[in-house]
């Protein structure tokens, strides 16, 4: 028994050292991607280096729907698409806060789906990409602890923080992407015959309070930093009942009360054409260009900083 306990203690000690070394190594690699890599490590770049007049945040629908070059040509300012696949609303807010700690862009544009604020929605926290920053930012820490109380223990391990990050860390050194200011074009056309014609969101009349709190925080943060905030619902191909949901009305009211611009293209007829979509939720490149051109006209009509910058 004594031999067993001693060996366990030895193993744990060695694991602790290896854990720290791996954490340091991964952080070093992460920082190297800011200077020495063929392409960017998205989250790290956004948190530490991105700088543009207009920043666009959201999940995969942001990443594949907003073409920065269209905005730049039309508005004459710099634009960067900070959309990230598979990320939650809290993830976006955390990124925005870290960016504002460095500098205030002129405008922040957030792609949103109001249905994700419903209690029954499947937009769980999805904060894995922010785990390595658990100890470096209080808001990120708060979100990660909100996701799971056990994270206060799990995040003490650098290996757990860097879970499922290894390949993404190495990719920027191996694969080069054409830099389209964060935008990632989708190339395929969807098979319309395979889609349901209507999408019905479930609702029990309750909303996710933590997400609404994050929304209010985000609005307040941008106001305090004198950053123009615009919320957008970008197009989907299928018809859905999203406007009947409590979350839609609630969020519209919050944004209206806070004087925040809100553009809803969720049921846009202009792009109701399957050749513009890769699947029911994502525009392909042709659709993204058309949507970006359409949206940029609406931005120009706003009495905003864009008009004056032209």
């Amino acid at each position, binding site marked *: 028994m004594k031999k*067993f306990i001693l060996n366990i203690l030895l193993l744990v000690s060695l694991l602790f050292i290896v854990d720290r070394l791996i954490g340091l190594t991964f952080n070093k690699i992460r920082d190297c991607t800011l200077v020495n890599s063929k392409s960017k490590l998205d989250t790290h770049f956004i948190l530490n280096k991105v700088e543009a007049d207009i920043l666009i945040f959201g999940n995969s629908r942001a990443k594949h729907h907003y073409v920065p070059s269209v905005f730049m040509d039309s508005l004459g300012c710099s634009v960067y698409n900070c959309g990230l696949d598979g990320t939650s609303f809290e993830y976006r807010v955390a990124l925005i806060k870290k960016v504002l700690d460095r500098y205030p862009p002129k405008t922040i544009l957030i792609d949103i789906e109001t249905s994700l604020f419903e209690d029954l929605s499947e937009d769980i926290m999805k904060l894995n990409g922010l785990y390595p920053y658990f100890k470096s930012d209080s808001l990120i820490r708060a979100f990660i602890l909100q996701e799971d109380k056990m994270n206060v223990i799990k995040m003490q391990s650098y290996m757990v923080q860097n879970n499922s*990050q290894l390949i993404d860390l190495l990719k920027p050194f191996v694969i080069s992407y054409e830099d389209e200011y964060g935008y990632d074009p989708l190339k395929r056309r969807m098979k319309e015959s395979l889609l349901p014609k209507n999408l019905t969101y479930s609702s029990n009349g309750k909303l996710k309070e933590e997400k609404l709190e994050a929304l209010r925080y985000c609005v307040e943060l941008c106001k305090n930093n004198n950053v123009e905030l615009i919320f957008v619902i970008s197009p989907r191909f299928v018809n859905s009942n999203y406007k009947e949901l409590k979350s839609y009305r609630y969020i519209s009211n919050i944004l209206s009360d806070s004087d925040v611009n809100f553009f809803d293209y969720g049921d846009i007829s202009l792009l109701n054409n399957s050749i513009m979509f890769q699947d029911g939720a994502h525009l392909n490149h042709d659709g993204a260009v058309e949507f970006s051109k359409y949206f940029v006209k609406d931005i120009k009509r706003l009495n905003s900083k864009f008009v004056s910058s032209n």
Partner: protein
Amino acid sequence: MSWKPIYAVLIFTSTLVTYVTSLLIEKNRRNTNKKKAFLIISFIINFGILFIFKYYNFINSSIFSLFEYWGIRWQVPNLDVLLPVGISFYTFQAVGYTIDVYRGTIRAERHLGMYALFVSFFPQLVAGPIERATNLLPQFRQKFDFDYDRVVSGLKLMMWGMFMKVVVADRVATYVDAVYNNVPQHSGSSLIIVSVLFAIQIYCDFAGYSTIAIGSARVMGFTLMQNFNRPYFARSIKEFWSRWHISLSTWFKDYLYIPLGGNRVKFTRHLFNLFITFFISGIWHGANWTFLIWGSLHGMYLVIETISRKYFKINTPYVFDLFKTLILVLFAWIFFRANNVADAFLIVTKIFTEFGQVYVDLTVMSYIGIGVGILLMKEIKDEFGFNLSLSNSKHKSIRFIYYISMISLILLLGVFDNSQFIYIQF
């Protein structure tokens, strides 16, 4: 999935019924009719509970669909019940015990606490191995001292099981689920790849769990039966079933196939016994037509194999046998995994007719490559007896490097988002 404290009543009922009926069977061992009656009571109650919670809604819905097709209204409502965790496993374990007492293989356990422990032994309660009373019950009466080698070997098993589950199975599942939940959108080429990956997923998920169960029992001093023996190295379907879910296949052999006559009957009856055993095995796996088809396929494979072994004695190379068996098993897994029969047939059709772009996620594929690569090395080493075991090296430094590497791989590459073991749904 299925955790409400009230459902503990079910395992308690199974335990009590089989405990009491076994005592009564033993008390009436000279009275065949009474013995049989108590055995039947045990069957009715235990399989009745299993039927209600696992199969009632499926049968009701199937009848509803059939009658609707004929234009007849069928208005029997479904039951609003959850599928209790481990119900298929502990029911079979308890019923197996009753049959053993009936046959005189084991004396009835008089201590209710000991017997209850046998039914609800936590390492194997949720997803097996389905233990035999002859193996496990006597162990509860043994006294165990701390044994360094036994505890370390148990912990090593748990570590390897965890690797199989969270590094391999759960990672592969992210790709498999993306394709199987959206079959019409994917090409036949993607579906071929995903069929191979699902075979890896289900093996690592189930064998990983079994390994953790066996390892944790070993740490405490108990020996559970081996449940997997590198099944994808089998050279025939018969051999596959001697290597896959061994506790279930031996249960069906001992308590269904042999009582039906096994192979000691006319040849045609033998073939029938084989088929029906696997047909029912398919039913055990789940309340869906896909599982029935899966079980029937394996029954059919064995029937054909038995016929060809009897009438056509052809020697084929090892590699041919290996790949032939693998392809047959992979084909059957399509039905096991598909969400419904329509999807299963769509997958089969697309595999043979629609080659196109493969759905690729480089990141996921890279992780899968690492996990499967390590798994394959270990499987080949164990199957062919190569004497290269890092975990059993006589050098402590090598052993520790192995432990730290495995734990690091689990923490860095494992998927920890509450995904369940596949077989937990049974």
